[in-house]
């Protein structure tokens, strides 16, 4: 079981979608990095990601990893946000039949998983069809 520090150090990204924008080439990286993978610059601004985008691809997980056992089946997709950044996350509040590539989704803050009945509850972003 990870220590809480492993969880809270990612909170700016998971709760607030804070990303790094390269001051040199404007490439947006999520999570933020120390070196820009496009131009090797090391100077960034903190920006907040767009809160909506479209589905690039998706799947329905039928055989889940352990912390997600009680959630399966569930949809996971890669979404391209309106600022061009792509994120992996669950697509919720819709029937699997409705899902399609290119569909518009918005980001919502949700519970992601939990460590048993008394452990840490993990939160983060999920996608909901618009």
């Amino acid at each position: 079981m990870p220590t809480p520090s492993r969880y809270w150090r990612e909170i700016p990204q998971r709760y607030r979608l804070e990303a790094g924008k390269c001051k040199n080439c404007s490439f947006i990286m999520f999570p933020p990095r120390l070196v820009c993978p496009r131009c090797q610059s090391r100077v960034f601004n903190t920006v907040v990601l767009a809160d909506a985008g479209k589905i690039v691809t998706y799947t329905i997980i039928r055989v889940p990893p352990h912390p997600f056992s009680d959630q399966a089946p569930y949809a996971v997709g890669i979404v391209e946000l309106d600022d061009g950044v792509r994120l992996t996350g669950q697509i919720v509040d819709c029937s699997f039949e409705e899902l399609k590539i290119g569909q518009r989704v918005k980001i919502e803050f949700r519970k992601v998983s939990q460590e048993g009945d008394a452990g840490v509850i993990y939160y983060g972003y999920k996608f909901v069809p618009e």
Partner: protein
Amino acid sequence: MREVAVLGVGMNKWGELWEKSLRNIFTEAAILALDDAGIDKIDSLIVGCMSSGLFTGQEHLSSLLADYIGQVPVPAARVESACASGGLALRMGWIEVASGMSDIVLVGGVEKMTDVSGHEATFALGTAADQEYECYHGITFPGLYALMARAHMEKYGTTREQLAMVAVKNHANGSLNPLAQYPFKISVEAVLNSVMVADPLRILDCSPITDGAAALVLCPVEVAKKLKKPVVKIIASGMATDTIALSSRREITWIESTFQAAKKAYAMAGKKPEDIDVVEVHDCFTIAEICVMEALGLVEKGKGGKAVEEGLTALQGKIPINASGGLKAKGHPVGATGVAQAIEITKQLRGEAGPRQVKEARVGMTQNMGGSGGSSIVHIFERG
């Protein structure tokens, strides 16, 4: 750099080996390789293993395995690049011999995956993806490749049946390989009716959980000639990396690391895709083989599914792929896979592949891949 040859190869039956430990599985393969090479002393040991720590609680394989193969105090290294750990071990061994640092290097790969439950194995394999930004959201490895499959189907019209045909072909080849975990044929209908794991991928699209090891001995070509052994040269080694997260790639359906590794290997070998007679690729999932064929330049981008359907990659086809049965039928003990691919190509080029022999194979290639394509390693072999 010196020219490098494969002096001997060794592999045992793969499967769920309940009665054997990691150290014994590895030692059996190493003994077979040393006997095949006709030697009993090595200068160095390199082992590929993805996650002995999570699968068995054992790290420090350099010491453990050098000891159990009776070769201490030789230097030894364990290398890791997820499911490409075996290919990386081969590359490191190749560099060590080519550079002149060592003459005789034992290159091995091993994974003991059935000492933990299925859930724990799934977790261990998941560590090859981005823990904080992929796994955190409940994605699995079949899930990541399902994302690629869905995108490939949408973009290029690849069909569900074409994906199934990859597994059917590899099982047909695997039925001719007595060391394979699943040496039997399956049908397209069986794949299409098997349990759904991550839409559109079903269980028969997935490589299995396997215990297994593979080992080979590398030496300078001059030494192989002196020992009057059949000479199979490794004429190129290419490796490339890409983003660990699938979502960060520019194209979901394109495995850039394989393309880059192959580009380096083709240039080093002075070969083109059409010069290759037999290929072993990393078919961890059916869609992976299709994407890899394209990235290796064996078929045009987007035409992988069609090539499989037309039989181009069958044992009797124009570009036989995975004559061994591939990861799908032979099994996928992750750290051992890259080494076993090199063993199959060595056997093919020696003309020792029995009923699955590709006729007049002179030049062969292996492609081993880590994660969803975050690392790829390509080697090219030629009969001496």
